[in-house]
């Protein structure tokens, strides 16, 4: 079981949240948690991960979104 890692992409402009997620998915093979604070970033990361065949669940934490990305 690989450890879960967290990518903090809060406050980043396009396309950085997606690029950070992409890089993390390429180097890490366990579950991934991505933290974003904008609706746009949430949509973009979700669309990207789902297009790559991952499952994405979104939850809200304070004013941020937490995207849990898993195979």
């Amino acid at each position, binding site marked *: 079981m690989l450890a879960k890692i967290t990518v903090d992409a*809060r406050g*980043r*402009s*396009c396309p950085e949240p997606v*690029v950070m997620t992409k890089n993390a998915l390429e180097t890490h093979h366990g579950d991934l948690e991505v933290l974003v604070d*904008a609706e746009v970033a949430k949509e973009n990361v979700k669309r990207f991960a789902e297009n790559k065949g991952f499952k994405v669940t979104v939850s809200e934490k304070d*004013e941020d979104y937490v995207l849990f990305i898993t195979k």
Partner: protein
Amino acid sequence: MRKGPILIAGGVIGLLAALLVKFGNPVNMGICVACFYRDIAGALGLHRAEVVQYIRPEIVGFILGAFILAIAKNEFKPRGGSSPLIRFILGFFVMIGALVFLGCPLRMILRLANGDLNALVGLIGFVFGIVIGIGFIKKGFSLGRSYKQNAANGYIIPGFAIILLVLLLAQPAFIFFSQEGPGSAHAPLLLSLVAGLIVGGLVQRTRLCTVGGFRDAILIKDFHLLTGLIGIFVVALISNLIFNPAAFKIGFAEQPIAHSDFVWNFLGMSLAGLGSVLLGGCPLRQTILAAEGDTDAAVAVFGLITGGAFAHNFGTAASAKGVPANGQAAVIIGLVIVLAIASFVVWQKQKVEVKVKEGVHVG
């Protein structure tokens, strides 16, 4: 994600652009974010080129339309602090490049949809600039994160839009309005404003972005935003044939508010594409983000306006006659400065990453 909504949104933008031309905007300039900011800079007296001075209500509409929807959808979030000064410089040079080509990336699509093949040269340059920018992004280019700010920051841009609208309605003597040239050609105020509100709302909801469309397609093989651009192109083409058939003409020569200087059409849009991709969005998208409370995007917008004023004060903007020497020099200087900034950011970032790795202790 379904592509229907963004395709339709793009189509509506293409239709509105053709209608704005039919009702008075200059040909192929139903919507041009760069030209409109340049006209606003002129109306405010920041430059004195008498043919390009008008407070374009479309811009007011973009801002207020996006602001209203952002508030309604709880997406209005005052934020900032992501390299504002670099964003100002990038906005400035995006405008310098756009005014050498004669149009923002959106007008480039509209010009293409009316048969202006010079815009095809511009498009190739634009994509070239985006590819260069993507190279920097892959190497880790980032302007850093923004942080939540006091709400007051977020209301500055919507307030600015309302002040522009008041000045447009009141027409005080210190505001300049062109009597001839492109600045004097405009659709009725209410129509322009309503069209702007619709476009602002649509772009806020769909996140449509001219630079994002090509960037995402190349970088992550995601064709979502590009679909919206195709919608703009196709519907603008059809609408032009229906509403403005006399102006439709396929070719390079004698296109309205355009020149056929291949090299500078290419390089001007390369600069606009590179600057926009580093900013994270095209001039239209920066405007929408600014309306949503993104003060970094707002700083980029002020960079665009300053670039518009500079371009006409120092004779760097092109015209139908071609690109002046000052404009050629400005594009080269712009490319050098923007590439230098991007390289410096990447270099600094890699240096920090090496230090972090050296500092890692194992066990």
